[in-house]
């Protein structure tokens, strides 16, 4: 047997977990009608197959009707959930993986204009910044019905074949009762710590009465709110001791921090560029103090850190949650001594930021995640090996190369630069976002393993491509910044890439005009602001940088606000006039009636890219399909069979930003779904 600390079994009550790596609760927002149906099941089954010891399903599954989902959570207050759970738990158990589920009442962390339009309830009228609802203060009958709702839900979970449940108590109703900041009730549920914890113990007692002493029940809770007058670490330790002393709790899943603002949430679940495992020591202290089984997750994205977390005895079970969103087969690769092949989580947080915008969780660089029913995590070999020539070694081109390599094709990649990466190279010029390069590095390592040939410093023209005698040509050349947005004065504009690459030095008084709203605008703004210049970010939209999304915005704001950047929304830059060294910016508004002039010495425009598509059009006429991609075949997962030119000697496809400005995920998804059927 292996002596890897991560691969040792763990006994949790009667349940033997086969190793130490778990996925903590995370709602990927895949439920259909609030139920875990096929997509949900396929997602968890793939990870069970990959060897994870336990998956904590759901994430904030709603026990009550007045806890309407904020990101398409499971509705476990409905009896109809049980058969779906049965299918889910069976599918996971088949791989000898344990499965549990997190239950919650969100309290004030939701909205009243959802679900049944019931008022939001909490232990005070304090509003939560993130969801904006002003809550009703719970009355006796609210408390009674919610206690019963928890117990009913727990019973359903047991009936659905779950190995256990976990109650969420960080930012949700249970700890809204705990925290002096959000509990203004009188006795018996307000006041002293005992009173503030009473609701939790009432819930636990009701659950135990229903599910018995053997069913596993854990608590995921904050042991330190890190807020003035909130739950202090001392109180957190006291809470932990009392949870243990109650005898009703089987494990502690330790969190540190609070989540009522985007910034606070980001400190609890850090993203790329922030420190790894920031709360591991704290979790270890909780374990040392209580001797309870402890689970903990918070940016432990790599196996080495996970191994340390377990080997050092700080935790019993280590959560690698986003890491599993990126690679479902982590444990299997550890067992098979293929750790270096694990697709790394780069902390882009695309998964989490999307669910807070009402989308489903998707991985920035694994397009099969959440699409297990149609997209493979393991690529099968093709029956016939083809010669595939790919132009461009950015994310789209490299994903195409990797997948074509897995298919067993003979792959050649032509790249103009002397290094791979495309636009990710620009991204990684930001110290904070260097982790993004792993998207490229992992693919390069996989391509090397698969025998893909690279030709760098090669500006491919039709001749270079034809010389390879391809069966299939994939154009993944990306684009160049489009800055032609003004009625007059476009020649005075500098692109975000000019700034990020260092080709143009920042000015002193700079306008960053951004209607693309993606990372490039903020990245350029940050470089300029750091050089000491005065920066104004302007957008015609109602909010700035919408594509960056909530948690990704946090590090930018921390940096830009400290550098005194101005944010201007709802104004449109119309024209520029040069007057000596001064640029006169003519500014209007889509709302009409505005015409202003403001002076700058440099104006940056962020407006996406224009495809670099010359080679595509040069190759089009001699291709068999004239570049056409059948959308039906693409969506249904059939090989492309369009023929528009029977003389054509190769199929031609275009992917990523070489078609139109999108993002990294779109580029990679383009590549995967086309090439998997090649």
């Amino acid at each position, binding site marked *: 047997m292996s002596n890897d600390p991560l691969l040792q079994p763990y006994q949790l009550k009667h349940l033997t977990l086969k190793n130490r790596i778990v996925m903590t609760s995370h709602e990927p927002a895949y439920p259909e009608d609030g139920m875990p149906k096929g997509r949900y099941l396929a997602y968890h089954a793939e990870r069970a197959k990959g060897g994870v010891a336990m998956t904590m399903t759901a994430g904030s599954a709603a026990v009550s009707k007045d806890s309407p989902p904020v990101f398409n959570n499971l509705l476990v207050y409905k009896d109809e959930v049980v058969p779906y759970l049965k299918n889910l738990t069976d599918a996971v158990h088949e791989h000898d993986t344990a499965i549990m589920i997190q239950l919650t009442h969100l309290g004030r962390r939701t909205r009243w204009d959802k679900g049944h339009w019931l008022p939001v309830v909490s232990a005070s009228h304090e509003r939560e910044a993130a969801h904006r609802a002003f809550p009703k203060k719970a009355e006796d009958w609210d408390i009674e019905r919610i206690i019963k709702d928890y117990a009913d839900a727990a019973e359903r979970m047991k009936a659905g074949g779950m190995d256990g449940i976990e109650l969420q108590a960080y930012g949700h109703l249970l700890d809204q009762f705990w925290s002096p900041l959000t509990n203004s009730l009188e006795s018996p549920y307000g006041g002293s710590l005992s009173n503030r914890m009473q609701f939790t113990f009432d819930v636990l007692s009701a659950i135990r009465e229903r599910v018995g002493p053997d069913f596993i029940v854990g608590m995921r809770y904050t042991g330190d709110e890190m807020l003035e007058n909130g739950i202090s670490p001392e109180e957190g330790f006291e809470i932990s001791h009392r949870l243990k002393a109650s005898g009703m709790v089987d494990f502690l899943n330790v969190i540190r921090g609070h989540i009522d603002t985007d910034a606070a949430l980001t400190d609890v679940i850090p993203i790329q560029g922030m420190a790894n495992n920031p709360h591991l020591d704290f979790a270890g202290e909780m374990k040392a103090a209580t001797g309870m089984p402890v689970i903990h997750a918070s940016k432990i994205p790599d196996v080495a850190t996970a191994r340390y977390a377990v080997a050092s005895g700080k935790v019993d079970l280590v959560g690698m949650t986003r890491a599993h969103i990126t690679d479902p087969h982590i444990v299997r690769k550890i067992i098979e001594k293929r750790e270096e092949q694990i697709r790394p989580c780069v902390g882009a947080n695309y998964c989490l930021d999307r669910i807070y915008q009402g989308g489903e969780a998707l991985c920035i660089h694994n397009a099969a995640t959440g699409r297990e029913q149609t997209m493979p995590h393991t690529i099968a070999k093709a029956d016939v090996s083809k010669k595939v020539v790919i132009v461009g070694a950015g994310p789209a081109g490299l994903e195409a190369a990797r997948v074509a390599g897995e298919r067993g094709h003979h792959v050649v990649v032509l790249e103009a630069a*002397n290094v791979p990466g495309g636009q990710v190279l*620009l991204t990684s010029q930001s110290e904070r976002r260097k982790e993004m390069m792993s998207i490229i590095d992992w693919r390069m390592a996989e391509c090397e393993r698969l025998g893909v*040939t690279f030709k*760098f410093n090669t500006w491919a023209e039709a001749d270079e491509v034809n010389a390879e005698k391809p069966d299939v040509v994939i154009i993944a050349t*990306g684009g160049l910044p489009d800055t032609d947005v003004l009625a007059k004065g476009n020649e005075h504009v500098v692109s975000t*890439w000019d700034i990020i690459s260092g*080709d143009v030095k920042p000015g002193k008084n700079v306008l960053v005009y951004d209607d693309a709203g993606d990372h490039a605008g903020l990245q350029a703004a940050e470089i300029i602001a750091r050089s000491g210049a005065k920066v104004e970010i302007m957008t015609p939209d109602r909010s700035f940088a919408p594509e960056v999304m909530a948690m990704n915005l946090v590090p930018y704001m921390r940096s830009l606000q400290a550098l005194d950047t101005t944010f201007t929304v709802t104004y449109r830059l119309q024209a520029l006039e040069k007057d000596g060294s001064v640029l006169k910016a003519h500014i209007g508004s889509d709302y009409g009636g505005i015409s202003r002039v403001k002076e700058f010495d440099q104006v940056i425009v962020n407006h996406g890219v224009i495809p670099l598509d010359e080679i595509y059009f040069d190759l089009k006429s001699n291709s068999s399909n004239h570049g056409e991609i059948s959308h039906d075949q693409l969506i249904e997962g059939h090989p492309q069979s369009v023929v528009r030119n029977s003389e054509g000697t190769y199929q031609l496809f275009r992917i990523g930003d070489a078609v139109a400005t999108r993002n990294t995920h779109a580029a990679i998804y383009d590549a995967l779904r086309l090439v998997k059927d090649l």
Partner: protein
Amino acid sequence: MKALVAVKRVIDYNVKPRLKSDGSGVDLTNVKMSINPFDEIAVEEAIRLKEAGKVSEVVLVSIGSSKSEETIRTGLAMGADRGILVNTGDPAIEPLAVAKILKSIAESEQVGIVIVGKQAIDDDCNQTGQMLSALLDWPQGTFASVVDIQSADKVLVTREIDGGLQTLELDLPAVVTTDLRLNEPRFASLPNIMKAKKKPVSKVSLADLGLPENFIEPRLIVQKTEAPEVRQAGVKVADAAELIDKLRNEAGVL
């Protein structure tokens, strides 16, 4: 004042070299090749001198097969002005021959400063700059960490030496070789890669330079090439006492 920078196409520093099965050298088939990192620093320095108004033109020269044009294009994408490719075919040529070729070009181009990498990461010779300086009878500033052109005929070169830094004042023209800490080379952006495609690269042969073909013939004979011994796995010791015991009794170093 023109700056001449020599750039060599070498195995990429990220690649783990594999030996040819006959032991005659490193297998370069299908291996990623790049500009020698010290030469990249040299290119960057020349471009910075040009940006500072100290240098009027940055000319790159590479010696080797036609593939070395890629290496020149890399430097042009960073911002150099033009390139000269001295086509000597495939065989590796030795530092003395390289120095003689560079001498010929430095003279015909009438450059004010030659900047080369202190060594190439493939053969680690660390000889070309010094030989070139002797052949030209120009002063040399090797292992530079600062290059500060004072006037049309003076340059201050700070060198990294054992135990500290030494600053030399050299008469121009001079030869400078770059050390790691001289600068951090810039990122070659796609727009600049596109611009570099249009920059001129003249291709010359040894004959064009008035040099005899035979003088690039190797003077050294490679006897054999061997991979370093595979490192043995280490062991973990429980405490300091065990460590001392092992150092004394097993390693015999105490």
